[in-house]
């Protein structure tokens, strides 16, 4: 699984200033999940009172490493030193005792408990709850005054926004008097403004002498707030450097292992007739909360409309309602024909029949059946297609397998084995199978969400080329991605979504990340 370490260890565990006290030292940590070597012989040192960044692509092993430090996973090999002392951390209890607190990428909160209950869980002062709750209420009031961490202690978690839930997680760690705070991709769910607020809090904590480890894959954040930064790639630590002595370009290169082509080669768009018209489209989730609020947009043949925004601002709902997974109100016209939004023909089958293909954001949960073989997944969603049918009753499995082989060859899926179960392909190859399935249908409109999430750089380039090729063939494409770089380089027009609405539409040639970032935070007005 682990590829050859072509970079070597450039600056292995770069030592911070000699003599400075170390908060944490990890030595030779390894961890495998079955066949996946998530961490391989990782060593790292973190100075007390510093903010240490960890960056790396998806799946590089960042969360795993930190979960080991927090005692959530057990390392297969390696040592942990806290404050210079060798410390065994077999479980989270030991980590907490050693003064470590962690805010996970996926929050670990009990949804129908109050904030107070969540905060004291596991840190109660005795057999009875009442004194613990009273104490927690006092401590929380102090903490919120000290760090600006406001949250209603009696609110139920399920009623809180993600940003507030994150505050609860931080409060949980502080309540346990953590000296070392680990935050795993804390800004992925935050608007830029919320992220700024968080960073102010973190700086405050640092000034109090606390040590902070911040996982992110946003280079901007690293440059802005960290003192030192470690780069991980495919389970290994490729470098640890002082932030002041590095540049985003160097970090990106360390992350992916070679120079990164940030720009996709493409000709200028030649937009044709309007393919998709969306007017006043709204979607509510199962809790009746409005997630998409009266969105209107159009896409022409031969153009890519990119949707930028912080995750959770309605992009997923937009894709889902267009792809026939969710229901909504408003109008959608495809090639001038109005689509059914609530009735019998509002499902994925009908959308496909009408010429909409959909590469979903979450490929492992939506796009394919992980236990099905590749050939079965190639029919997924197109199981009604005439070429896959033997007769009225039976599917033509042989034809399907032959077709799969062809698609695998054209899209360079490795290994090119139609009988292999989807779960046994790597993320990038899974994505290629899905993209092949959807693009080869030659749809009028392609919906594509997070096309390169967790995909290695080679596959990214390939998938980007396919998207551009489809555009050049005169098809309309709706691209949703949280990666601003991807949006900037692929889109012919960029729409920014915030809170279920389109904040504005920009030409990539005339905009920049700052402008988009403001709109993503809901600050800039609706100047389209």
């Amino acid at each position: 699984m682990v590829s050859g370490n072509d970079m070597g260890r450039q600056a292995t565990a770069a030592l911070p200033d000699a003599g400075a006290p170390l908060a944490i030292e990890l030595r030779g940590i390894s961890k495998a999940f079955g066949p996946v070597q998530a961490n391989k012989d990782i060593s790292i040192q973190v100075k007390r009172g510093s903010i240490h960044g960890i960056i790396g692509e998806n799946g590089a092993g960042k969360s795993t490493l930190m979960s080991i430090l927090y005692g959530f996973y057990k390392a297969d090999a390696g040592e942990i030193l806290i404050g210079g002392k060798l410390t065994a951390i077999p479980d989270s209890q030991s980590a907490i005792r050693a003064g470590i607190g962690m805010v996970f990428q996926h929050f670990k909160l009990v949804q129908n408990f109050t904030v107070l209950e969540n905060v004291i869980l596991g840190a109660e002062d005795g057999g009875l709850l009442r004194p613990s709750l009273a104490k927690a209420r006092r401590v929380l009031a102090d903490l919120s005054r000290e760090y600006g961490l406001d949250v209603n202690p009696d609110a139920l978690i399920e009623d809180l926004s993600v940003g507030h839930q994150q505050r609860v997680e931080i409060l949980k760690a502080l309540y346990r008097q953590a000296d070392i705070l680990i935050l795993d991709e804390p800004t992925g769910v935050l608007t830029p403004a919320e992220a700024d607020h968080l960073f102010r809090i973190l700086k405050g904590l640092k000034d109090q002498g606390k040590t902070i480890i911040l996982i992110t894959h946003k280079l901007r954040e690293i440059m802005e707030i960290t003192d030192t930064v470690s780069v991980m790639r495919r389970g290994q630590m490729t470098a640890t450097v002082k932030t002041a002595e590095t540049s985003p370009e160097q970090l990106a290169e360390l992350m992916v292992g070679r120079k990164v082509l940030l720009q996709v080669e493409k000709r200028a768009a030649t937009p044709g007739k309007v393919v998709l018209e969306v007017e006043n489209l709204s979607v509510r989730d199962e809790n009746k909360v409005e997630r998409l609020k009266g969105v209107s947009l159009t896409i022409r043949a031969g153009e890519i409309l990119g949707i930028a925004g912080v995750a959770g601002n309605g992009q997923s709902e937009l894709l889902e309602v267009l792809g026939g997974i969710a229901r909504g109100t408003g109008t959608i016209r495809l090639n001038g024909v109005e689509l059914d939004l609530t009735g019998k023909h509002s499902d994925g089958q009908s959308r496909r029949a009408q010429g909409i293909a959909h590469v979903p954001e979450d490929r492992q949960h939506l796009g394919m059946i992980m236990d099905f073989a590749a050939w079965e997944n190639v029919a997924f969603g197109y199981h009604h297609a005439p070429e896959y049918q033997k007769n009225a009753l039976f599917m033509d499995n042989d034809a399907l397998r032959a077709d799969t082989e062809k698609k695998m060859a054209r899209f360079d899926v490795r290994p090119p084995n139609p009988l292999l179960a989807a779960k046994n392909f790597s993320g990038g190859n899974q994505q290629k199978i899905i993209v092949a399935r959807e693009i080869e249908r030659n749809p009028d409109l392609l919906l594509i969400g997070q096309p390169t999430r967790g995909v290695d750089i080679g596959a990214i380039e390939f998938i980007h080329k396919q998207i551009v090729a489809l555009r050049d063939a005169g098809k309309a494409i709706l691209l949703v991605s949280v990666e601003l770089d991807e949006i900037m380089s692929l889109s012919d027009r960029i729409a920014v979504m915030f809170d279920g609405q389109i904040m504005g539409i920009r030409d990539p040639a005339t905009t920049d990340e700052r402008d988009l970032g403001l709109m993503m935070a809901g600050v800039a007005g609706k100047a389209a």
Partner: protein
Amino acid sequence: MDRLPKWADVALVPLISLLLAAFFSAMVLLAIGQSPVEAFNVMVDGALGSAYGWGYTLYYATSFMFTGLAVTVAFHAGLFNIGGEGQAQIGGLGVALVCLALPWPHWTLALLAASLGAAAFGAAWAAIPAYLQAKRGSHIVITTIMFNYIAAAVIVYLLVDVLRPAGQMDPATARFPEGAKLPSLSDIPGLRELFLRVDSSGMPILGADGLQTYQNVPANVTLLIALAACYVVWLLLWRTRLGYQIRAFGKSEAAAKYAGINPVRITMITMLISGGLAGLMSINNVMGEAERLLQNSSEGAGFIGIAVALMGRNHPLGVFLAAILFGFLYQGGAELGLWTSIPIELRIVVQGLVILFTGALDQMVRMLLRWAFSFRTARVA
């Protein structure tokens, strides 16, 4: 070594689970002061040692094939149907109503109509839990349990107050007309020689007319339908579009929705098929054997279907084999009750242990195997 070879997963895991269940059954026997060896001999002799024995073994196996398939089909859609018992009993009601409705001219017609009645009633009984699961998210395990009890109450009411012929004391319907009598396997030319009646020295017994006499075995033509059902279910699941949709839905409801597979529709259709299969079982016992509807006609076969499906790894071929095994267990168990002082309940214990090891402790078996395989690979390496 982390993954088991496929053959080990398919064949070795159930086999070892079965051996574990057998081992613990033997321990239970030893604990109550009985000899497992003797028990096993009695079971083999009683279930396989005579025409009478295998007549009953096949009869039970037929029922278990249907209920096993019913659990299997639902399982592939991610639905755990423990309502086979109730569906089979209500299916029996369908059979009884059809058989009693007309003086059937020929058994083939009666069989066709009764099959439809059985499947329709069984499916209808599965439809409400299915609807509640699909539309209202009520957990189908709990609703099907409830429906088992409700079915029992419905049957009691009907047998006591509605269907019981005047003057009859036991709660049962009237006997079905002669035209609705299914041929038993010993009536079928070609098969009948399997069911010769023999005397104690093993010599065939001659009738008054000098011809050999045959056992009147309960195994009947329904067995052939059960075999066909195994094949049809296999085709359905792995060759048809519907089967594709069922399996996809069972693996991931969210993905199925993305693919435009309607969850409500698939849940309903799958449970109708499942209930229909469970209902079909009652042609075997109600029409083929009892020839009238009795209380508790399915005698737990709906539950044994769970064990059969788990043991058979939810594959029709596996279900077929597991059904035969359980047919053996059931007939053999009945013989234990007769010829030894081991209570007949032993077979329920074995059934429970099989479900436990194949269904709930399968991870433990896999871990054991993985451990064993790691030795092998280590040596090879």
